């Protein structure tokens, strides 16, 4: 079963509190996040493909009292697959890496990604030492994952199967300095 990506993002972030910090990947997950409602505690990526999970790791280590959700696509995760090994060593309690997996690069014309041919990101994450790997199969699984995001207890990896479609783009702020400063200000840091 595949879930609708915009509804999946909205379900994961419903009732979000100020201690949840969200880093989407470059591309569709950033538009999904913007569509779910803009928030100063979102750090949208318009580049840096392959870097979302590592930004999440640096942020989670720096903010142990807040929760960090990296919500990225299969193509973006595959580009930075080594990050799962790196995260598997650090294992901060407050980090979730969630992959919206549709097996295609939908931004660029629906070319198949490696997950369509058998690359199993859940198994990779588990083999890298991430103890909690959640295979979301349906709406109930999504609701369970949303609940886990409200009180993370250990590094979590989740795969969310989504439809291979491309909803209308919802474009967030794209000035990187503005995104950085508003994020830090929201955390009470000097901009």
């Amino acid at each position, binding site marked *: 079963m595949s879930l609708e990506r915009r509804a999946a993002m909205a379900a994961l972030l419903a009732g979000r509190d100020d201690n949840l910090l969200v880093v989407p990947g470059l591309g569709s997950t950033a538009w999904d996040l913007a569509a779910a409602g803009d928030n100063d505690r979102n750090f949208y990526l318009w580049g840096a493909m392959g870097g979302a999970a590592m930004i999440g*790791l*640096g942020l989670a280590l720096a903010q142990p009292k807040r929760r960090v959700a990296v919500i990225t696509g299969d193509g973006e995760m595959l580009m930075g697959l080594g990050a799962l090994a*790196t995260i598997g060593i650090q294992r901060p309690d407050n980090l979730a890496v969630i992959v919206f997996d549709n097996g295609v690069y939908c931004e660029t014309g629906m070319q198949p990604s490696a997950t369509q041919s058998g690359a199993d990101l859940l198994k990779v994450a588990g083999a890298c030492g991430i103890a909690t790997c959640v295979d979301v199969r349906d709406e109930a699984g999504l609701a369970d994952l949303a609940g886990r995001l409200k009180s993370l207890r250990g590094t979590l990896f989740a795969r969310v199967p989504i439809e291979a479609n491309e909803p209308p783009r919802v474009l967030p702020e794209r000035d990187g300095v503005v995104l950085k400063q508003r994020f830090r200000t929201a*955390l009470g*840091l000097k901009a």
Partner: protein
Amino acid sequence: MTETIAGWPDRLYDSFKRAGIRQVGYVPDAGHARLIDRCRADPDIRDVVLTTEEEGVALAAGAWLGGERAVLLMQSSGVGNCINMLSLARTCRFPLLMVITMRGEWQEFNPWQEPMGSIVEPVLKLCEAEIFRARKPDEVEGVAERALQSVFGDERIAAVILSQELIGKKVWTK
């Protein structure tokens, strides 16, 4: 006073501590071994071994978003791995300090190190990084202090380049 060869990694560590560095990302390199050991032994520094250097550029950005200062240690061969990810630091003006041990420039036994080693400085300059090079042990501390001030004082990208002559010749035969 002239520094001993063994002392300069400790001066780098001392500079990191004065600057309040809390995260150190690195791809291991023999030239950085002493500094890595110091960081690993420090409970106030999170040492993050990376699978590739570009992960460290992203790590440092995340650290800064969360209010911590990070540095990235690598060998010259790692600079090429970072180029696209440096767009993150450039576009968002994230402070980023790279400390780079040089290969391929002085008494290098391995010719495979020369192509990347020979273009480290021009590539980094194209990526808007300020270059601070230390050629002798007693230059390391001053170079590190200037680079740290530039990075965290002015939110810049900078590279401390540690010359191969400073690090010493790699021994290939036992």
